[in-house]
């Protein structure tokens, strides 16, 4: 079985987000980019499946221009066997999903693991669109994944609980924390980083697909006014404020 793990290149979670003065785009100045946190759980699970003898190859795939390559190399350093970069700067999810599907139609994988969403644009669209294009089963908010033969058993988070579903491969899952534990995530070591330099990294040209959604402008949410402190021995006052002023109780 071949596994493809789709990786997004996103601002580190500690980033302070600013936009360009015209509001057209993210101001990337001073921002550290990382593997999308949700994708890291999927990458680790893919490597575990390979180590358990259930997969023969783990490919990390990214859509982006040359500037995202360090993020893809990091996935190789963590342990992916090879990497693919689809060479384009996407404007919308439909482009990303079409391009990945085009690649996978020529280079099939039984299992595709994505993150539930990228923490930058929060679209959450690509995994489901990809499943549709590939004619594969789709499981979202995946927090557990086991493979037996051609069948996957997936634990999926739902509102207020979880459910277990099964599906025949091929399968696209959108994963998050729980797929593996935070403590199981792998940090690239020196050997991995050295090996990553020579692992195959293919650059693929995308087809022409027009974006069906565009960003008009971005802005930062307005902040709150100064905090009102209430004395710890007068909590009746807090209750009064929540009732009369905030009107939330």
């Amino acid at each position: 079985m071949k596994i493809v793990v789709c990786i997004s290149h996103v601002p580190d979670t500690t980033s302070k987000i600013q936009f360009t003065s015209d509001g057209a785009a993210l101001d990337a100045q001073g921002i550290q980019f990382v593997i999308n946190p949700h994708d890291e759980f999927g990458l680790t699970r893919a490597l575990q499946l390979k180590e358990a003898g259930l997969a023969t190859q783990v490919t990390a795939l990214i859509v982006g221009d040359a500037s995202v390559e360090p993020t893809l190399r990091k996935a190789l350093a963590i342990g992916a066997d090879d990497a693919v970069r689809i060479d384009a700067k996407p404007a919308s999810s439909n482009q990303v999903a079409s391009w990945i599907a085009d690649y996978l139609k020529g280079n099939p994988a039984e299992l595709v693991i994505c993150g539930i969403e990228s923490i930058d644009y929060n679209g959450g669209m690509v995994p489901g669109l990809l499943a549709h294009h590939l004619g594969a089963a789709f499981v979202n908010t995946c927090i557990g994944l086991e493979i037996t033969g051609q069948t996957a058993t997936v634990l999926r988070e739902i509102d207020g609980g979880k459910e277990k579903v099964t599906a025949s491969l091929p399968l696209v899952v959108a994963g998050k924390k729980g797929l593996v534990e935070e403590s199981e995530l792998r940090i690239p070591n020196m050997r991995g980083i050295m090996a990553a330099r020579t692992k195959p990294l293919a650059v693929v040209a995308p087809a022409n697909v027009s974006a069906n959604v565009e960003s008009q402008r971005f802005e930062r949410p307005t902040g709150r006014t100064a905090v009102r402190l209430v004395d710890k021995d007068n909590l009746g006052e807090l209750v009064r404020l929540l009732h009369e002023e905030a009107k939330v109780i």
Partner: protein
Amino acid sequence: MVLIFAETWNGTFKKSTLEAVQYGAACAKSLGTHAAAVVFGATTEDLAALGGHGAQRVIHVTGAASFEPLAYGQMLASIAREENAQLVVVSGTTNGKSLTPLVSAALDAPAVTNVLALPHSFSPLTVRRGAFSSKGLEDAVAHGSTTVLCIVPNAIGMAPAGTDSASIAPHSAAATGKTQLVEQQIASGKIPLPEAERVVSAGRGMKGPENWNLIEALAQELNAGTACSKPVSDIGWRPHSEHVGQTGIQINPQLYIAVGISGAIQHLAGVSSSKTIVVINSDPEAPFFKAADYGVVGDAFDVVPKLTEALRAFHA
């Protein structure tokens, strides 16, 4: 016309379902058209009552099995095509988020997710959405004759229900999915976080999982959901399903009470859209106070029981 996915949960509507119906009805009004709600499978709800939330019609797919994203996506898309829908509205529950890309793909229509408000314009469709995990807001423009909108639960205010009655038409759409449900586990007696109107959340300041009874008592008094910070779920004091923040669940309740949480930027990203934020922390320098409406500087083990007591007195 505007088509709304009226999600049922064990045969009943959630608040998020009614929000989606009202949202779709408001869009239909602006477009000078009507709104119809689609209900899949057996239900114990009075479907005609969706008229009180603005749906003129209910399309009831009576034979549908339990939720499966591909099957529901195909059925919803085929109804949207029959109806020539301009908009398809879905609430961003876990099932709604699974359904949105599949209905969008089946219709070859654009979708805007994480929608926070009614569209600014319908031609072209321009709507505000959350981006960068609540650190940014985006106005997105969709290009298509049909657009799928997936709205954030709790983001759009609910108007009281009216008395209008919707007409009900059974429908026989059918589709086969590619996944099979084996079993479902629902945590009993807990309020699911994305839809909770009030949330009490706690961090490492609680010192250990054995002290969560204080948090649960406060939550119970407020009829609130319980949540936790990332470190607390990472060390296993609380389940991952309670982790709120940038990489956990993102919430926007009316009231968010944070106990013993310092307020790291990743945590704030997941909760800063809450309407009112109360921070309880023994450290007056905790960064969370800068993002709060009300603050109490004090020891959680002292403040939380006293607050629970004050609320009990208020409710009495």
